[in-house]
């Protein structure tokens, strides 16, 4: 089938573009994405930071692989760092020192890599908090929430496998802790440790193994999940914050070309610039100070990288013995005693397990309790979902107590308090903290919602003090404009749904439980102002007064 008038471009660029277009159909791609609308909000940038720090990790990490040798073979260091000259160490440690001291810019690249890793996990975490607190995980985005959660776990895995590679004293002690935790696992633990280390700890196999995980498997999984994650973002279109003109059926924002591409693309360079600045100025992981790994010495005040801190803190909080009761249980079996090491198992597995289980299951928990299976493309302002915000705050406090516990010794030395007291307080906070956080956050959310009501019903404080003829002072209140009013009144207020009978007329036990939780979550709630309420408020105070023309003060 001959085309009579095939398009022929006139410029060189046009000819190149046309060549590609006629081979891959680029026009359709440009049509789809060229002016695709993305909503704009500063809190949407955390995910971008995660993506960009990951790119930095790939760039700096590739550079490092050209010089790093993950072997654990014993060598005597002969590089240019004088204090360690003649000291025996593994090849991995020696090549790390070579990267730092004998490759120009090598130290800078190491620092970029380490700082990017810390920022990568931090931005992933904050991004997930943003998604949680705004309710962006609701239908249809539940699966993307799960993908994000797995990405966070893979981020931790990447950090952990990379942290140990230099084979320095600090990371070696980290591995020793991993060995101890592995051995605590019942039945399989001892073998798991032997397989992992290739024999007894530390052996000479673990660093190369961690290396292949760190530079191949883990990044490959991250890239795969990242593609799935972004693909789903495109499929769903981005969520947007509520406000005038923004509905569940539209997307309001800037087109990819040119504004969004420019902002997002420019932001990559900003993230790069900030990481480069930090890496140039602030020293991180000076392995030459720690020295090579040796099972005997350890430095006081050791700290893991921040994202492992919560597990390390949990390990510290757990008491090993209470009086004469030991949390290492020796269970008699016909073939002899076996040990169940609860003093390690409980803190290593239970808090992190609970945290991630609730996190992954939350979209379904919320859907079950609220019976809300609608699609949500408009985000919640956190105050307008007090139950969820309170649960999130409880989770954050739970995490942060464990995190703080990882620095219990530093807290004790910096604030001149007894180490034991710090631990006792943190143990108490571990249980009480989340409850207090839940209660307090919910009350704060409800109060903020009431404040929103007040602003709608009585106007905002204008900051203008008026004196009445009688000499009384009052502040003028001004009615908010329709746009602000729409923002303050247009939210989805979840309500208590009592137990519903099923088709056969029975109320199942599960349904009763759901009703109980629903009651707990939604019994206290603040409804949005309705037009009739506003009319009533105006009538009660006199219309002109809401306009702010009369000197009467608003009753507080």
């Amino acid at each position: 089938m001959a085309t009579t008038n095939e398009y022929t471009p006139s410029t060189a660029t046009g000819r190149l573009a046309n060549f590609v277009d006629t081979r891959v159909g680029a026009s359709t791609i440009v049509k789809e994405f060229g002016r695709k609308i993305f909503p704009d909000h500063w809190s949407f940038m955390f995910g971008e930071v995660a993506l960009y720090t990951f790119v930095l990790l790939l760039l700096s990490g590739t550079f490092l692989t050209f010089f790093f040798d993950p072997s654990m073979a014993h060598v005597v260091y002969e590089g240019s760092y004088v204090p360690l000259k003649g000291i025996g160490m593994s090849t991995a440690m020696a090549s790390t020192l070579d990267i730092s001291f004998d490759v120009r810019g090598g130290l800078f690249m190491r620092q970029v890599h380490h700082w990017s890793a810390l920022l990568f996990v931090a931005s992933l975490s904050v991004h997930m908090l943003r998604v949680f607190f705004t309710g962006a995980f609701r239908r249809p985005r539940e699966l993307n929430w799960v993908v994000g959660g797995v990405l966070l776990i893979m981020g931790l895995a990447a950090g952990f496998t990379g942290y140990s590679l230099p084979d320095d004293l600090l990371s070696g002690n980290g591995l020793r802790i991993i060995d101890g935790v592995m051995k605590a696992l019942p039945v399989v633990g001892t073998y798991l440790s032997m397989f992992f280390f290739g024999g007894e700890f530390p052996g000479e196999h673990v660093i190369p193994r961690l290396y292949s995980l760190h530079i191949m498997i883990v990044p490959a999984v991250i890239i795969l999940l990242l593609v799935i994650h972004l693909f789903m973002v495109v499929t769903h279109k981005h969520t947007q914050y509520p406000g005038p003109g923004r509905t569940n059926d539209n997307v309001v924002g800037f087109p990819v070309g040119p504004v969004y591409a420019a902002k997002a693309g420019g932001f990559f360079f900003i993230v790069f610039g900030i990481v480069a600045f930090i890496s140039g100025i602030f020293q991180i992981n000076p392995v030459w100070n720690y020295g090579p790994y040796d099972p005997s010495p350890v430095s006081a005040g050791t700290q893991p990288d921040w994202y492992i801190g919560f597990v390390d803190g949990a390990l510290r909080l757990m008491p090993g013995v209470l009086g004469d009761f030991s949390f290492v249980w020796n269970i008699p079996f016909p073939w002899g005693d076996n040990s169940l090491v609860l003093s390690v198992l409980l803190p290593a597995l239970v808090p992190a397990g609970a945290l991630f289980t609730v996190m992954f299951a939350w979209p379904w928990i919320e859907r079950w309790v609220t019976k809300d299976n609608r699609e949500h493309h408009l985000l919640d302002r956190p105050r307008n979902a007090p139950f969820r915000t309170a649960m999130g705050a409880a989770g954050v406090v739970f995490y942060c107590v464990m995190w703080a516990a990882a620095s219990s010794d530093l807290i004790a030395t910096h604030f001149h308090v007894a180490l034991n007291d710090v631990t006792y307080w943190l143990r108490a906070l571990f249980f009480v903290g989340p409850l207090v956080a839940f209660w307090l956050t919910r009350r704060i959310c409800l109060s903020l919602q009431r404040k929103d009501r007040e602003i709608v019903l009585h106007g905002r404080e204008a900051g203008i003090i008026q004196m009445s003829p009688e000499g009384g002072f009052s502040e003028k209140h001004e009615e908010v404009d329709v746009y602000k009013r729409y923002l303050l009144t247009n939210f989805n207020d979840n309500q208590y749904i009592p137990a519903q009978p099923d088709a056969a007329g029975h109320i199942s036990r599960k349904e009763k439980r759901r009703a109980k939780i629903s009651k707990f979550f939604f019994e206290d709630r603040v409804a949005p102002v309705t037009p009739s309420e506003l009319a009533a408020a105006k009538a009660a105070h006199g219309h002109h007064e809401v306009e702010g023309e009369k000197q009467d003060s608003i009753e507080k």
Partner: protein
Amino acid sequence: MGDHSHGSPENSGTVAKADDVAQDRFPDPGLPPHRPRLADRDPRAAKRHERQVALLFTISIIGTLFFFVSYFVLGHLGDMTFAELRVQNAALGLGTAFAMLGIGVGIVHWAKTLMPDHELVESRHEIRTEADRQDAVEIVDTIIEESGIKRRPLIRNSLIGAIALAPIPAIFMFRDLERSGKTAGEMVEQLRHTMWDTGVRLTRDPSGTPIKASDVQIGSAFHVIPEGLNEAEDVLNEKAKAVVLLMRMDPQEMNISEGREDWNVDGIVAYSKICTHVGCPIALYEQHTHHLLCPCHQSTFDLANECKVVFGPAGHALPQLPIMVDAEGYLVARSDFHEPVGPAYWERGQ
């Protein structure tokens, strides 16, 4: 309803009851009117922004040049002092930072001040339309039908069996991750033994010089390795189990349990240095309280009570190394440890 401040915790007046669903809502007023920026109205402001963006890009160029200067002029290969390295690292960082921030801030400034800031509206589409679903179901049915997998259960079931079995070798392939070739029993058993044996001298870590009983004063602590460790085949593996802390206490202050009476030499005692929690070396000895403290997770052991746990996450006491004095007055081990050192594990038992 307007006066909402007179409520009680149970009924605040504003907290709506679950059953009164708010039917009436304020209508959506639509997008707020667009406010023109300075550059939209004033060509001079636009020109100024243009110059600012160009200046930022120029800063980036200077940053890149600065990077080259730092790389070639500040840095040289071989025998750089640590101070020189620090300066070079900072300079490389600043050069890169300016190079990148210049581009990034420039582009964002350009986008915010000179590109259109009109928000556009696009409508969302159904994620899955009903027509598509029906088409897809039909396609899947056709595929299943044409493959015949439902009609021929023999094929299906034997395939399931084959696929279930096929990956199992891949798991067994990993058996030799443990490189020593030991049997399962040997793997577990080796955790019970260290280099210590009857007559093995206690030597200083790391020099390996032997220790005389008379060298050990009350209050002092020695980091100890077994004699011959530095010549051992797997130095680190042996060291990870065999390191010992040697201290001397007033024998009057020690509670010695039955069977351990001859494990010390005039109050000189030796305990495993590997924490029974998760295996960190216990590096801190507090002389006054005679407590040993692990710096990793703060497990605290009481030397006066045979290193029983007094605080922290460790679940059992530090193993004691029985010691004695040989003919030349050097401290030697009476035997190996009587229990496995280090963290507890499933097969450890009592």
